[in-house]
Every structure is written in structure tokens, then in C-alpha cells.
């Protein structure tokens, strides 16, 4: 040691004070010498220790010394105590958890854990809890576990912490030790007990319900600590064990949240903690800070809340910046429960807004953000924008910009304000702005709100404001702002009737010419120009644009200008490709390229080789290399079996993977660039308005319309007190009144369990939004309000009697069932049976079906509002007709055991109604169709006829005659279907004809959407059979699906979900790979091979049919995306 002190670092230290260049030279020289010394075999361990200390020093100075890493491990392994100590230290400083060299350390750690020398055990435990490869944990776990019983408390303590660390790295492996943690909690040594609290904090955070029984123990411990029962040694500035107290307060907070009984256990000790913390020292404030949070998190008790609020006042009013900051932080936590505290401290908050310290300012803004409501939004947003203009920090900008955009969307008082605020957001946020802000904004503009006129005004205002901005010369706008402007101008310029489109084109063209715009932005601008050409016949600028960009070096712009040329020449195509105000309509992309089928068939007919995927070609090449080909070459490929299937191939709609051809085709390419890019946009809006995340924050911020008077009252009182203050003070007060307006004293928010919500300025039109999430929501709403199966016709009937036109009646039915659901007595049993299917069958009732089925649903739920219409009437009518059960279609017993869908109304008029139900039988899809005569007279000669397309095949006749259907009776027919040609979705059409007594024959058309997944069944295979089949199948598709989860179980979860959603059969799961089999009815098998690696699920599908893998992959993709 002496040696090191005298020789090594001092020389370096002395020299480190020299200029950088000299230092570098010196250290490099030193490193070279060290490198030589460590690799000399004669270097003793003691010398090695010295070398390593020097290496640590060099690394700290920023020089790389990786050549020494292995020697650090060696030293830890071979050295005696003090060398080992330095070796371990060097390892823990040099390497991180994922370093591969760590594997070499495992044995050393194992050996030292078994050592009889306490210090060696200590070192091993220390290094294990600092860094340990997660996959090696099982190797040392039993030894560490054993140490929990060690006689020395220091060993027990370190073992507990090592286990805590293991728990963080690999929770599953430590699961079985939970009981032993309890022992540690009761350890006689306070250090061991304190260490175990780390684990408990974590466990309780994950599962608060599981540890409620420990509450009284934690309370007792805290009582003893606060009461000074621990050794004086644990005191810190005469506060007993503050770290322990804080840890316990955090644990109690988690346990007492939303739990009155548990909370009651801790009231006393919290009261005591608040009382004890009187000494004016940082450490007591640190404890108080935790205490306040705990008091406000657990079930409220009035006098505790008052005391905590008073304590919080001490923080905020403190002249010390640190305390003031923490007070603000606590306050923004506390106001989630109680808005009134803000009113108490309003003047302080105003002062903090202009505080010289940025972090205090920032925390104040955070606080204001949480109390924003419709009345104070303008002032608060202004303050935030002011701050943003000064701040240069990227992280702060991103977070604040998001908040401003959120508040603006939520509470905007006027359209003008909204657009101007968003303009400020885009200019201030610059290029740091996250993509979801402009995307959400455009989406909001495009989708509009409930009010058409309002929508137009907002859009027009946006157009006007952007035109004004673009007129200003020499101002540099951020890229994203330019993109927003050009999109809006392209899309909505038509609203501004007084402006000439060509003028706008001119200014956009000018913008395009500026070099400040990035290529991406240029593409946006160009597409806006293209859109504007549909508004004008004046193509004066056109040649100039084409000339400038037709030969552009950038292929994208060149393509755009080429497209523009074509479109301008043909107005008709222009209008189909770029329709006015249709930006939110979905575009169906035929990604299977079925429109090329003719071309492909021709080519094949002329002897071209059929397409083989890349990996198949590779495999074939490999196999060809190995063996000689003894077979004669075929003459022509024209007879290849694949051709026939190619020509008739159906395009699964909306396949999400792109092929090169479809991207390059003019039309698809244009559409792509023109439509709003909504992929990857965070979903904030749903059918019922704002989705979860915002809802929460909405609940936090509350406005009460009648609370203004309270505020004013508050103000008059403060005003009296501080009467005669300077003008500056007056100004501050004015500001305060504008900031804290709408936060009344009667606004105890969730404290009393009452939530008021403000009306949102921009409430989206309720409409079915594309996407899995919203779809699920739709499904669940449907489930909730769906009338009991047996009753649909009944209800229908009743409603229909009062109002005839069919369109209305659908809505009526739903309105009524929705509003009456609580009163209908038969509702419950039906729902129960509904649940019974769910649980009894893995082919759940209705799976999330592809977007195509939206048609039926959006028709039914078109307006999403289920107002109560004539509730009295409907109710009585319903009750009156209840006994008449002949109308209720019920599934025949033999089908009820199979999984089946809900009843769906496929067609109805005033006299008859048709309902369908899908029964997923093992060998076919059975469509059961119910024909209900809802008139008061007989129906004669009714016939149901299905028209089958090529894709489908029925087992028997598709005509179903019903000679006579009595009044109010229901008859049924059934059709067994199999899918002959795979396609994602197919429409089963048909018509029903019937005679009413004397009248003419009436005909009604109907259509039913069927999906690929309706025809998929599990294929039960063994692994060997799978292997054989795999080799015999030739058509394959490979795709990598990204997968959010990265846990080891991810593959299993994914496969289980596939099994459940798509009815696939999991053959085997081997490590990170899984094999899955299914068949398409009648008998086309399809095999899947899934490999999970680093968040990517590679799916490889093979089938005898060439289209099936594509289609099925698409279904898999949808399922995985939902995960």
C-alpha cells in the first residue's frame, strides 16, 4: 500500500495538473508500460495489484485500459485477501453486467462464497450484488440463500441485498425464497431488517394486496424507530435511522392506498412522524416530504391531511431553494387529491413562476399544468410557452411541448387560440418536437368534431394563419411546422374561396425552392402542390414546377413531378386519386397485387418460371450442390400446378406488407404519400373521446363552474390583508386570479371519491376508428349492450311496430336496449350464458374480426350515442310481448355445444327479419339462418337462396324453401361451408323471396362477411409428423414481426394468443422456437415456425397452397400487433 501511495498515482496526479496534451502523452506512456508489465508472466500478484490500481486511475481519466480486464478477474481469482479485494474492485469498475468476461468470474465468486474467511464471503457477496450475469444466478443462488442463516449480521445483510439484486434481474428464480425474506424482516439486527425492506418495497409495489398482513409489522417497526428504540449509532444528526423511516413510509404508502382498513392502522404513527419532525434540518424535511406523500396517498383522514398541509406550507414558504423546490414537488403531488392547497399558496406560486432558478420555475409549471382548466388555460399555456422560448434543453422542450399541445387540445377556448397556440408549439418546439404532436394535430383537423360548421371554421382559420405566415419572408420555420402547413394548405385551401389556388401554389413552390426544407418536407410540400392543382384549371405554374423537379437529382421529387404531370392531364384520375376532404377515409391497398395476376398468368403461359421466394431458392441451390441431378430437365413450366392457383388468386384486402411493385405503381405510391401517416401515432382518441391516459389527467384537473365566487372571496380576504401594496404586487394578484380561477374550495377531488369532469373543447366525432384497440372497445360495448340472444327478434318486433323505416329502427333497437338493459329481467341469465361460452371454449364467441366486419357494426352503432327514446313505451311493449317465445331463435341443441358467434341481423324489413349465426364446427363453418315472420299474417313460398362465389363450397344445396311461415314464427335453415380458395375475407351473398298473403313476391338481398379465420381449424400433429410435412410443403412466406415484450415468456405468450385467436394448434415449443399447425377447411394444411429473438418474432409459414401463407401471416400479424 505504501508503495502505491508513494509511487503510482502521485506522479500521475502531479502531472495531471499539466496541460491536457502533456497528460495524454504521460498516461499513454504509462499505459504502454502497464500493458507490458501485466502480460509479463513473472509479474507477481502484488505488482499486479499495483498495476490494476493504476489502470483504474487511467480509466477514470478517460483512457481505455481494456487489456487489463482479464487480469482483474485473474487477480480476484488467484490473489490472497488484499489482492482479491483490489481485483474485485477493478472488476466491478471495469465491467458492466452484460460483459462477457464476467462468466469467468462466476467460479471465483462460487469459491469465495464457500470460503471460511468472512472477508472473502463479504467480497463475493458485494461483487455479486453489484454485477452478475443474470443467466448465472442459479449457480450461486443456493449458496447466497444459505447465507441468510449466517451467524454474522454483515453476511446476512449482504446476502439479503444480493438476493434483492437477483430479484431485480430475474424475479422468477428468487420466487421460492419469499418466506425467507420474512425471516430477514424479523432479524434481530436492524441492518439486516433494513436491507430486507428494499425487497419488500419492490414486492409490494408489484402486488400490494399480497402483503397487507405485514402492515402492522411495518407500523410497529416504524413506531420503534421513531420512538428512538434503535441504537444511537443509527441516528443521523439526532434523527433516528432516517433512511429506514423513509423506506417504511414508502411501503406504508403502497399498502394503504385505496384501503381504509389498512390505512387506519397507520394513522397514529403518521401523526407521530409528522409531530416528531420538528428539528430544522434537511433530514427531517426529507422524512416530512415522504410523510406528506403517504398521508395524501392513503385513505384520507381529515386532521392528518390538515397537519400534512401545514407541513407542506413550511417547505413552500422556506427561503431555502432546496426546500421550496421540494415543497412545490410535494404540492403538485398533493393537488391530485386536494386542489385547495394551491389556493392557499397562490402568491408563493406566482413568485416561483419568476424565480431565478430554472428548476423551481419548471416545477411550478408542472404544478400549473395539473391545475389547468378551461378558464385558466390561456394564461398557463402562455407561461409555459414563455419558459419554452428561454429553455434550450432538449428533454425539457420535448416534455413541455407535449403538455402544451395536450392542454391546448383539451381546453382551447376558441379556434383562433387553438391554432395560434399550436403554431407557437411548432415554432418553439422546432425539430425536437416529437412526431406524434403534429400527427395528432393533423388528425384532429382531419377527423373533425361533431359540428361541421365548427370544423370548417377551424380548418379555414388554420389555412389563413399559414398563408399569413408564409407571406413573411426570410423566416425559417422548423421542418415539422412546414410539413403541417403544407398538408393543411393542400387539403383545405378549397375552403378559402377568395384565394386563388395558383397563388398558394406559387408560395408553396417558392418554399420548395428554398434549400432549408429537408427532403422529407419537400415531399410534403410537393404533395400539397399536387393536391392544389385539382382546384385550379390555371396551369400557368405547372411547366415551371415540372421543369424544376422533373430532372431533380432526388428520385422522390422526380417521381412526384412525374405523377403531377399525369394527374393534371387527366382530371378524372385526379379526382379519384385525390378526392376533396377525404383524408380520413381508409385506403384499401391491394397488397397481394391481384391486379397483376393476368400479367403473371400470361408470363407463365409463355414459359416463365414461377416465382420462388428467396430462401426457397437458396435451399434448393444448397441441395443441388450436394447431389447430382439425375432427372431430365422439364420441357416447360407451363403445366406447373402452381399456375392455376396463381391466376385465380384472390387478394386479401389490406395486407400490410408491401411488395415492391405495389409501391412503385403510380397510384398506390401517390395515395401513400398523400394520406395522413397515422401508423405509429399514439392513440389518444377513441370512440368515446379521449382515451385512458388523458382521462386520468382529466380527473386530476377539475373545474367547477360555480367556484369562481370562492376564489374571488379568497382574494378579497388576501387583498384586505395586503392592502396598499405596490403596483407590482397588484399585477401579481391579477395574474393569480387568472391562474387559479376555477379552483374552488368545494373541489375536493378524488379525496371524497367524487370526480367532476370538464367539458372538452375538442371532442371528436364519435365514430368507429380503425384499429385493433378501438375495435375491441366496440366489441365490448356491443357485448355490454347486446340484447340477450333469444330476444333480438322480440325486441326488434316491438320497436318495429312503432316506427317503420328500417334504418331508424336499427338505431331505435339499440337505443332502447341500451337504456333499458338494467330493467330487462332476462338480461342477466343471457349474459351469464354468454360468459359460459367464453370460459368453456377456447374458440371464443366473437374474436376480433378484421376490419371488414366493421360494416355491420358501424351500421348498428353508427352514431355511438344511445339516447333514451321513448323509454316508457318501449319498456311496456317489451313486457307485453315477453311471453311470446315462438319468435325467439335459439340454436338447436346439437350446435349449442360448438362455439358460435352472436346473432347478427343480416336483413330485415317491416315484415320479415333474417338473423344469422356462425357455428364453428370441426369440419365446416355452419351458417344458421333464422327467418322470422314479424307480420301479423302468414308468409308463403319463402325461399332463401345463397349465391356462392368461387372461394366457398357448400356441402349441399344452397336453396332453402319455406312453404309456409306463420305469423310471428321463426324458421331456420343451415348451410355447411368450406373455403376452397383462401382469402382474408369473402362476402356470402344471397337473397330471400317471399309472398305475403295477397301481395306480390318480395325479394330482399343480404350479405354476410366471412373471414379466413372462420375456416381455420387446429391441426393436431406430433413433432415428427410436423417435420415430415414441413419438408413436403413448398409455398412459404417469412416475415419478422416486431414484438413489444422482451420477456423470456414472450414466445409462449405469442403462441398461446395465436392459438386462442386463430385456433391454431401448438405442436411444440423448443427454447426460443415454436412450431404451430393448422388447416384451412376442408383440408389445406399450413405450418408455422416461429422463432423469437431480441424482440423480433420471425414467422415462417409453409403450406401446399400458395396464397394461404400470405393470408394467414396477415392474420398473425394482426394478432401479434394487438399484444
Amino acid at each position, binding site marked *: 500500500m505504501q508503495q502505491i*501511495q508513494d509511487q503510482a498515482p502521485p506522479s500521475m496526479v502531479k502531472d495531471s495538473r499539466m496541460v491536457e496534451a502533456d497528460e495524454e502523452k504521460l498516461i499513454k506512456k504509462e499505459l504502454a508500460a502497464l500493458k507490458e508489465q501485466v502480460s509479463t508472466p513473472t509479474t507477481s500478484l502484488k505488482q499486479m495489484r499495483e498495476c490494476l490500481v493504476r489502470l483504474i486511475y487511467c480509466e477514470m481519466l478517460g483512457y481505455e485500459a481494456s487489456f487489463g480486464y482479464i487480469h482483474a478477474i485473474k487477480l480476484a481469482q488467484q490473489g490472497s485477501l488484499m489482492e482479491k479485494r483490489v481485483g474485485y474492485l477493478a472488476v466491478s469498475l471495469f465491467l*458492466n453486467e452484460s460483459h462477457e468476461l464476467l462468466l469467468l468470474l462466476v467460479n471465483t465468486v462460487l469459491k469465495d462464497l464457500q470460503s471460511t474467511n468472512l472477508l472473502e464471503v463479504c467480497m463475493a457477496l458485494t461483487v455479486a450484488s453489484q454485477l452478475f450475469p443474470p443467466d448465472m444466478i442459479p449457480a450461486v443462488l443456493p449458496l447466497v440463500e444459505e447465507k441468510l442463516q449466517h451467524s454474522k449480521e454483515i453476511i446476512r445483510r449482504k446476502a439479503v441485498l444480493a438476493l434483492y439484486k437477483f430479484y431485480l434481474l430475474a424475479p422468477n428464480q428468487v420466487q421460492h425464497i419469499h418466506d425467507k425474506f420474512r425471516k430477514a424482516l424479523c432479524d434481530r439486527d436492524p441492518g439486516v431488517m433494513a436491507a430486507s425492506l428494499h425487497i419488500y418495497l419492490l414486492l409490494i409495489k408489484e402486488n400490494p394486496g399480497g402483503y397487507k398482513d405485514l402492515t402492522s409489522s411495518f407500523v410497529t417497526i416504524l413506531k420503534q424507530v421513531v420512538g428512538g428504540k434503535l441504537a444511537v449509532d443509527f441516528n443521523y444528526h439526532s434523527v433516528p435511522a432516517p433512511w429506514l423511516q423513509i423506506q417504511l413510509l414508502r411501503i406504508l404508502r403502497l399498502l394503504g392506498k385505496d384501503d381504509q382498513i389498512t390505512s387506519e392502522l397507520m394513522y397514529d404513527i403518521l401523526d407521530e412522524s409528522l409531530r416528531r419532525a420538528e428539528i430544522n434540518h434537511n433530514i427531517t*424535511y426529507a422524512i416530512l416530504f415522504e410523510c406528506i406523500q403517504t398521508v395524501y396517498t392513503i385513505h384520507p383522514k381529515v386532521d392528518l391531511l390538515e397537519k400534512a398541509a401545514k407541513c407542506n406550507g413550511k417547505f413552500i414558504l422556506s427561503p431555502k431553494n*432546496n426546500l421550496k423546490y421540494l415543497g412545490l414537488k410535494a404540492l403538485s403531488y398533493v393537488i391530485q387529491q386536494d386542489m385547495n392547497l394551491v389556493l392557499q399558496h397562490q402568491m408563493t406560486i406566482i413568485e416561483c413562476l419568476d424565480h431565478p432558478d430554472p*428548476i423551481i420555475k419548471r416545477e411550478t409549471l408542472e404544478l400549473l399544468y395539473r391545475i389547468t382548466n378551461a378558464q385558466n388555460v390561456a394564461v398557463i399555456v402562455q407561461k409555459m410557452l414563455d419558459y419554452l422560448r428561454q429553455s434550450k434543453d432538449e428533454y*425539457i422542450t420535448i416534455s413541455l411541448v407535449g403538455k402544451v399541445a395536450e392542454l391546448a387540445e383539451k381546453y382551447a377556448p376558441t379556434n383562433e387560440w387553438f391554432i395560434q397556440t399550436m403554431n407557437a408549439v411548432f415554432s418553439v418546439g422546432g425539430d425536437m418536437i416529437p412526431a406524434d404532436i403534429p400527427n395528432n394535430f393533423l388528425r384532429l383537423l382531419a377527423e373533425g368534431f361533431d359540428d361541421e360548421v365548427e370544423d370548417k371554421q377551424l380548418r379555414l382559420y388554420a389555412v389563413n394563419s399559414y398563408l399569413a405566415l408564409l407571406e413573411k419572408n426570410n423566416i425559417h420555420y422548423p421542418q415539422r411546422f412546414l410539413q403541417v402547413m403544407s398538408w393543411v394548405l393542400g387539403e383545405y385551401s378549397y375552403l378559402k374561396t377568395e384565394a386563388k389556388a395558383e397563388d398558394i401554389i406559387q408560395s408553396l413552390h417558392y418554399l420548395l425552392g428554398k434549400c432549408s426544407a429537408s427532403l422529407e418536407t419537400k415531399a410534403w410540400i410537393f404533395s400539397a402542390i399536387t393536391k392544389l392543382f385539382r382546384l385550379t384549371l390555371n396551369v400557368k405554374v405547372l411547366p415551371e414546377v415540372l421543369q424544376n423537379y422533373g430532372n431533380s437529382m432526388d428520385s422522390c421529387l422526380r417521381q412526384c413531378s412525374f405523377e403531377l404531370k399525369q394527374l393534371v392531364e387527366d382530371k378524372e384520375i385526379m379526382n379519384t386519386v385525390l378526392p376533396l376532404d377525404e383524408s380520413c377515409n381508409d385506403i384499401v391497398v391491394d397488397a397481394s397485387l391481384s391486379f397483376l395476376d393476368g400479367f403473371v398468368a400470361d408470363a407463365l403461359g409463355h414459359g416463365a418460371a414461377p416465382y420462388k421466394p428467396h430462401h426457397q431458392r437458396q435451399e434448393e441451390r444448397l441441395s443441388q450442390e450436394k447431389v447430382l441431378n439425375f432427372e431430365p430437365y422439364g420441357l416447360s413450366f407451363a403445366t406447373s400446378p402452381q399456375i392455376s392457383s396463381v391466376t385465380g388468386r384472390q387478394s386479401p384486402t389490406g395486407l400490410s406488407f408491401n411488395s415492391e411493385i405495389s409501391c412503385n405503381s403510380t397510384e398506390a405510391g401517390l395515395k401513400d404519400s398523400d394520406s395522413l401517416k397515422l401508423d405509429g401515432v399514439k392513440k389518444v382518441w377513441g370512440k368515446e373521446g379521449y382515451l385512458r391516459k388523458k382521462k386520468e389527467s382529466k380527473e386530476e384537473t377539475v373545474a367547477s363552474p360555480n367556484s369562481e365566487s370562492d376564489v374571488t372571496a379568497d382574494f378579497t380576504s388576501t387583498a384586505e390583508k395586503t392592502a396598499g401594496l405596490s403596483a407590482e404586487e397588484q399585477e401579481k394578484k391579477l395574474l393569480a386570479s387568472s391562474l387559479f380561477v376555477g379552483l374552488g374550495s368545494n373541489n375536493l377531488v378524488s379525496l371524497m371519491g367524487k370526480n367532476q369532469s370538464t367539458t372538452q373543447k375538442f371532442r371528436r366525432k364519435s365514430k368507429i376508428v380503425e384499429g385493433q384497440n378501438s375495435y375491441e372497445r366496440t366489441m365490448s360495448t356491443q357485448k355490454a349492450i347486446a340484447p340477450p340472444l333469444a330476444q333480438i327478434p322480440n325486441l326488434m318486433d316491438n320497436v318495429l311496430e312503432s316506427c317503420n323505416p328500417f334504418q331508424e329502427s336499427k338505431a331505435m333497437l339499440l337505443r332502447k336496449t341500451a337504456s333499458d338493459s338494467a330493467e330487462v329481467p332476462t338480461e342477466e341469465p343471457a349474459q351469464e350464458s354468454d360468459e359460459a361460452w367464453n370460459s368453456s371454449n377456447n374458440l371464443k364467441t366473437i374474436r376480433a374480426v378484421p376490419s371488414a366486419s366493421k360494416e355491420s357494426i358501424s351500421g348498428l352503432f353508427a352514431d355511438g350515442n344511445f339516447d333514451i327514446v321513448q323509454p316508457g313505451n318501449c319498456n311496456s311493449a317489451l313486457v307485453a310481448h315477453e311471453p311470446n317465445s315462438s319468435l325467439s331463435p335459439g340454436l338447436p341443441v346439437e350446435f349449442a355445444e360448438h362455439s358460435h358467434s352472436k346473432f347478427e341481423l343480416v336483413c330485415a324489413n317491416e315484415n320479415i327479419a333474417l338473423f344469422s349465426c356462425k357455428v364453428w364446427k370441426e369440419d365446416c363453418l355452419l351458417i344458421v339462418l333464422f327467418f322470422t315472420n314479424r307480420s301479423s299474417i302468414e308468409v308463403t313460398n319463402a325461399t332463401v337462396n345463397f349465391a356462392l362465389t368461387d372461394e366457398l363450397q357448400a356441402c349441399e344445396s344452397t336453396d332453402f324453401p319455406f312453404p309456409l311461415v306463420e305469423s310471428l314464427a321463426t324458421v331456420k335453415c343451415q348451410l355447411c361451408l368450406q373455403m376452397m380458395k383462401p382469402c382474408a375475407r369473402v362476402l356470402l351473398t344471397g337473397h330471400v323471396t317471399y309472398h305475403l298473403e295477397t301481395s306480390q313476391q318480395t325479394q330482399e338481398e343480404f350479405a354476410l362477411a366471412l373471414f379466413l379465420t372462420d375456416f381455420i381449424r387446429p391441426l393436431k400433429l406430433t413433432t415428427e409428423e410436423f417435420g415430415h410435412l414441413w419438408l413436403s410443403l413448398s409455398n412459404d412466406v417469412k416475415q419478422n414481426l416486431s414484438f413489444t415484450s422482451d420477456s423470456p415468456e414472450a414466445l409462449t405468450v405469442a403462441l398461446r394468443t395465436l392459438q386462442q385467436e386463430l385456433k391454431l394448434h401448438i405442436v411444440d415449443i423448443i427454447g426460443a422456437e415454436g412450431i404451430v399447425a393448422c388447416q384451412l377447411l376442408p383440408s389445406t394444411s399450413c405450418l408455422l415456425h416461429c422463432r423469437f429473438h431480441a424482440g423480433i418474432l420471425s414467422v415462417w409459414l409453409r403450406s401446399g397452397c400458395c396464397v394461404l401463407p400470405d393470408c394467414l401471416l396477415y392474420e398473425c400479424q394482426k394478432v401479434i400487433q394487438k399484444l
Partner: protein
Amino acid sequence: MSLKGRHYPDSTMQFMLLFSRQGKLRLQKWYVPLSDKEKKKITRELVQTVLAHKLKMCSFLEWRDLKIVYKRYASLYFCCAIEDQDNELITIEIIHRYVELLSKYFGSVCELDIIFNFEKAYFILDEFLLGGEVQETSKKNVLKAIEQCDLLQEEAETPRSVLEEIGLT
């Protein structure tokens, strides 16, 4: 770039840096796995930020998505990174307790003590904080653990150096 690793709970300290007024790093301890490149970048950025921070302001800084808590003792800056929702005051006291431990061990510690005995400073830190969590809050216990090691080390060292001196090795 977010530093938040998924293994790490909110209360854990992310890293601790000690540097001089001249911006020279004197001690670094990382509790989250980061590459050397990232470490260097963070260190450089942070040293600059902290040194530029005005004296009268809070001892807290917002930096990336973390909070930096720092305290200056003579010419040395002690600087910790914690999560946003953590308690900054207790972190300041952790720093202070560490300085107390160093003082007690070295007997009124100065920057040179840490430069010459930086490995000792690491040993003390490891006894006090383990994996970013407070391991032992009793000052006596921490120092006892260190002294035990030192003692044994000297015992082991003395005979050997004697032998060496005689030239028996």
C-alpha cells in the same frame, strides 16, 4: 437517450460522480449498465453543467430525464443521479453521510486523500451503498467493516514484506 434500465426500480441511485473544481473526475460509480462511450459522454456533459450551475440555486438539476443532486465540499463536487420522482433531499444526505464516513476514516478528508487512496474511497462507498441502495446506515458498522479488511490486509502484508526484505522470495 433514457438511462432508465428496466431492471432498476425508481428509488435506486443511477450513478455517483466525484469531480474537482477543474472538472477532473476523482471517482465514478455506475449503478446502471452503460457502455464506456455513454459513460464518458454523460460525465463530460454533467461536469460542465454542474460546474456552470450558480451557487445560490438549488442543489438539484434537471438533466435529461433524471434529477441530478450535487453538493460541493471544498474543491470537490459530489454528484448523484436519481429518478425524477425520488426524494432529492435524502440524496443530499446520502452524499453527506458518505463525506462523513470519508472524514472519519481519513480524519478530515481532503481531495488529495481521495486521489491517493481512491480505492479506499471505493471500498467505503461499497460498504455504504450497494447496487445503488443504502446498505448500512450505521456509521460505526460501515467503518468497522472497512477496518477489519484493512487490518487483515496489513497482517497478511507484514510478514511477506519482511521475507522479501530478507530476500527469501
